[in-house]
């Protein structure tokens, strides 16, 4: 059974194909084609609980150039670049990755993988948790503290 992409209320909004409100709180749907070269956004949503997206790692992505010859593996920093994008989607373009803690890279990601990424809404101190899944497996996770430039 595939893991649900997002909580039911947000799924309902996706099925309506439009932005709207979840009670008093707005739900936005971003239309981002790619976060970095070859990291294609298939679905992306921001809600009160955080940011979620489904990304395809294109085999043609330049992130695999030199990483590694004959053994292509998604660089771990790709997850961090996605995380930065999520913080900006939630908090605006001034949002930055200020601190990271307890970040684990658990599995390698190969070309063609479809990743599901969730980043919780930052708390009062700017801290939040993030997880990257490949199917049921966690490939990366950790905590970030968001800053503002």
């Amino acid at each position, binding site marked *: 059974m595939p893991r649900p992409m997002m909580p039911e209320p947000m799924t309902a909004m996706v099925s309506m194909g439009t932005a709207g409100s979840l009670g008093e709180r707005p739900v936005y749907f971003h239309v981002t084609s790619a976060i*970095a070269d070859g990291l294609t956004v298939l679905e992306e949503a921001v809600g009160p609980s955080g940011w979620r997206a489904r990304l395809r790692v294109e085999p043609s992505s330049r992130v695999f150039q030199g990483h*590694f*010859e004959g053994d292509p593996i998604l660089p771990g*920093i790709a997850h961090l670049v996605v995380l930065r994008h999520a913080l900006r989607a939630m908090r605006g373009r001034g949002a930055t*990755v200020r601190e990271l803690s307890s970040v684990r890279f658990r599995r390698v990601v190969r070309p063609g993988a479809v990743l599901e990424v969730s980043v919780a809404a930052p708390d009062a101190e700017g801290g939040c948790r993030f997880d990257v899944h490949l199917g049921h497996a966690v490939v990366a996770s950790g905590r970030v503290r968001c800053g503002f430039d």
Partner: protein
Amino acid sequence: MPWWPAGGCGVALTERLLGEDMLPHSGPARLVEAVLEVKEDRLTCRGRVPGASAFAAGGRVPAVALVEMAAQAVAVHRALRLGVEPSGAASVRRSGYLVAIRSASLAADDVATDVPLVVDARRTLQAGPLVTYEVRVSGPGSEALLTATLSLHAGG
């Protein structure tokens, strides 16, 4: 008192350029270029993020890319400890891979590409195949852009 050497990019040390086979990373994925100083438990090296990096745009790259640069510096130190010469006298394939960022602090959101940076890495723990380093990446003015504690698995 910081453990890293003073001087940052301005420090006058003898460079030893890395050979092609010193790291498995190549082309735009290679962020470490030369070893400046190496000791049993620490390494200072020079790196830069190429403008051709897949993560760069408009001459800038997210500062989180410096985590990769620091991890490559650690891999170089491990390779040197295994007896591989910086000139690439022997091939090292994946002398370690990043498994954890225990902590990291970034001073900027992004950094310029093609600007020489200095990485200082000091080994603080080795437990079986797991090795932990404290790292610092400094900018052209010796300012700290990244300080972090990284853990790598020796691979194999």
